[in-house]
């Protein structure tokens, strides 16, 4: 005994330290407790990401949670938790867990299922140990009953192998062995999906562009550009938006390669990049045209009729010595005193204002801002009996287009396909094994059957019941 202990001690000490560590790590990952723990941790921690809004400014967390919790959120990466190191680490542990468990369990399962084929290897008494077993006495001689048993199993599409020894006949019948590998297929599919997601996040990118009709957008990492030819909105009769559409043309060098209409749910795919119609909106820094009217400073009455000026267009004001150019627009006027510039506070048209250049003949006389909501607060033309009032405008819609390059997508789809196959095997193909022993028993024939299944006992019971009926019916 002492010797044996020493032997073990020697083999232990002969292992190099990294082998010891390696086997400990392997043992750690070869654990279903770990699987359950990781799955529940992933489930539990994911809740945080749905409750705490992701990818917000620090100030917003500050307003919602206070200083202390904001610090916690930023420190733990809960503001972008699905891309945090610890979430990635959990997925990594799950991956290792899957890989190690597959390596550990698949080969013996494979061997075991192959080795189990032989009917010579079982003793009649193991039949009684099966979860479902039965003994029948059939009239007729052994040979005839043996044929009936074989036929009954064949009818239920079981594979049967048989042998005879010591006056008895032994059968091993089985069906649906491939169902045993369903779980392995599902596990491999999960690895594929994770691989696809990784490829996507390393080699892909996401981008968003605001595009105006007639302009091109550049596409990162490619040699082509895309031009927006047209943007329009379709409406239902009720006035609700039915769909919004962009007509895009791919331009490579000087050549127009392809034109396609895209809409929500119908992206353009070109050279690995997808272009999505993702939003639209009113431009905040340009308009199509503005309507104005010349008024008398004294009476505030209109002098002449309302006129329209197009963007960047110079126009003679009807019935006057002035002409005007529409030079700028801002949707939500704000003035920055520090650097003396005008900007739009928001993208909404809360305080629309236009910037115009007023000419008298060829001479530039003023460059005022005119406000839609506050007509006349600043005189538009100094030293003149006239003033200009901004009455209306026609905005420009922009098309919001998302760009997405994700070379991992196809791997993900492959993974989901494999997963579907795996599920069919795992949940809807049952491995059923039935052992049968037939022998002579005082004039009649005794048939002992016992069956095992990996999953659905009811299906096995039903199978055996029908087989027994078939044997009895002959």
């Amino acid at each position, binding site marked *: 005994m002492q010797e044996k202990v020493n032997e073990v001690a020697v083999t232990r000490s002969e292992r190099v330290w990294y082998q010891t560590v390696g086997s400990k790590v392997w043992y750690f990952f070869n654990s*279903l*407790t770990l*699987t*359950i723990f990781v*799955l*529940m941790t*992933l*489930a539990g921690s*994911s*809740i945080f*990401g*749905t*409750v705490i*809004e*992701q990818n917000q400014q620090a100030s917003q967390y500050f307003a919602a949670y206070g200083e202390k919790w904001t610090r916690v959120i930023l420190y733990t990466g809960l503001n972008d938790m*699905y891309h945090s190191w610890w979430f990635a680490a959990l997925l990594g542990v799950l991956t290792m867990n899957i890989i190690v468990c597959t390596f550990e369990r698949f080969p013996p399962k494979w061997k075991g299922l192959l080795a189990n084929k032989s009917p010579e290897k079982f003793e009649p008494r193991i039949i009684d140990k099966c979860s479902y077993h039965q003994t029948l006495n059939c009239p007729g001689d052994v040979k005839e009953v043996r044929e009936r048993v074989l036929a009954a199993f064949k009818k239920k599409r079981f594979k049967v192998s048989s042998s005879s020894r010591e006056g008895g006949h032994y059968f091993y019948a089985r069906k649906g062995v491939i169902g045993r590998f369903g*779980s392995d297929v599902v596990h491999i599919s999960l690895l594929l999906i994770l691989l696809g*997601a990784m490829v996507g996040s390393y080699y892909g990118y*996401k981008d968003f562009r605001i595009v105006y009709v007639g302009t091109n957008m550049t596409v990162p990492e490619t040699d082509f550009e895309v031009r927006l030819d047209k943007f329009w909105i379709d409406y*239902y009769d*009720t006035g*609700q*938006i*039915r*769909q*919004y559409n962009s007509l895009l043309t791919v331009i490579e060098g000087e050549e127009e390669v392809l034109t396609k209409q895209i*809409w*929500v*749910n*119908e*992206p353009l795919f070109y050279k690995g990049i*997808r272009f*999505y119609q*993702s939003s639209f909106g009113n431009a905040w820094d340009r308009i199509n045209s503005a309507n104005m009217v010349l008024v008398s400073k004294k009476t505030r009455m209109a002098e002449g009729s309302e006129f329209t000026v197009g963007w960047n267009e110079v126009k003679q004001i009807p019935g006057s010595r002035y002409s005007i150019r529409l030079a700028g627009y801002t949707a939500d006027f704000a003035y920055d005193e520090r650097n003396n510039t005008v900007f739009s506070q928001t993208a909404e048209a809360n305080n629309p204002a236009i910037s115009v250049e007023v000419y008298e003949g060829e001479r530039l006389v003023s460059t005022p801002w005119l406000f839609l909501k506050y007509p006349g607060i600043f005189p538009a033309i100094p030293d003149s009996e006239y003033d200009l009032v901004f009455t209306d405008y026609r905005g420009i819609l922009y098309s919001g287009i*998302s760009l*997405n390059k*994700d070379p991992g*997508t196809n791997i*993900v*789809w492959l993974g*989901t396909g494999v*997963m*579907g196959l795996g*599920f*069919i095997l795992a*949940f809807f193909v049952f491995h059923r094994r039935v052992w049968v022993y037939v022998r002579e028993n005082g004039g009649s024939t005794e048939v002992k059957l016992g069956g095992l299944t990996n*999953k*659905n*006992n*009811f299906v096995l019971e039903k199978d055996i019941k029908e087989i027994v009926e078939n044997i009895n019916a002959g």
Partner: protein
Amino acid sequence: MILSLVFFSFSFAFYILTALLYLGNWVFQKKWLGQLATSMAVVALFSTTMILIMRAGESGHAPFSNLYESMVLFVWATNLGYLMMEYKYKFKTAGAFVMSFEFLAMLSATMLPYRYKSVEPLNPALQNKWHWMVDLFSRFGLEKYAIGWLDFHVFTTFIGYAAFAISFGLAIMFLLKNRYETRGRNNALIGSLPEARMIDELSYRAIAWGFPFLAVGIVTGAIWANSAWGAYWTWDPKETWSLITWFIYAAYLHARVTRGWRGRKAAYLSIAGFLAVIFLYWGVSFVLPGLHAYA
């Protein structure tokens, strides 16, 4: 007269009746009550099918576009799933649990605020149809009836939900039965339930159905998102909660199949899973902001 509402009212009455009949069958153990309960469940199933068909006719699209419609789909799928189970395994006491639950689901559908019920035209993101189907149907002028990933997504997801609901009902039955079995007490009502072992097995079978269907629902949702939102996965709250639910049931399957974690613990996990389903379905729509806010 909106026919879908007429069928809804009828169905509501049918589900009350069905639930009462199954309860009656459980309490009084009369064969004719059981048969009547099953036929009533079939009538209710037919009536629920009619709600969906009429609704599709009224709105001009598959009836899966708001919370009310999805509730009806949920009730329909649960009823169908239950009847299949009853037919296959021949036991009716579960009907008392499942049909009472159906009644509650119908009740909550009637109590939804109007904006979750009204017939709305599809917004741009929901217009997702298979090209080949549109092409095929347009030959006969039926392109309106073509479906797409979205419909497939909602449909498979709700089959999953229905299976989880059935498993939840069975888990509760199991806990009741198990309590009496382990304490060796006797009670006519509890005694008439099938063996705990069998309830446990059926509860597992229901999850074994729901789990792949939820997975297919998540995947088809991802395919749809890939053409509507610009990426197959965006960690939107609904997506994340579907994954949370899926993880819980994955843990259930691993615990059960491989470690023999059956019986009470499995029943508790099934209940936890279904609570996640309820939050995934209702909680996310009402509490959390996100792209799925419409259903």
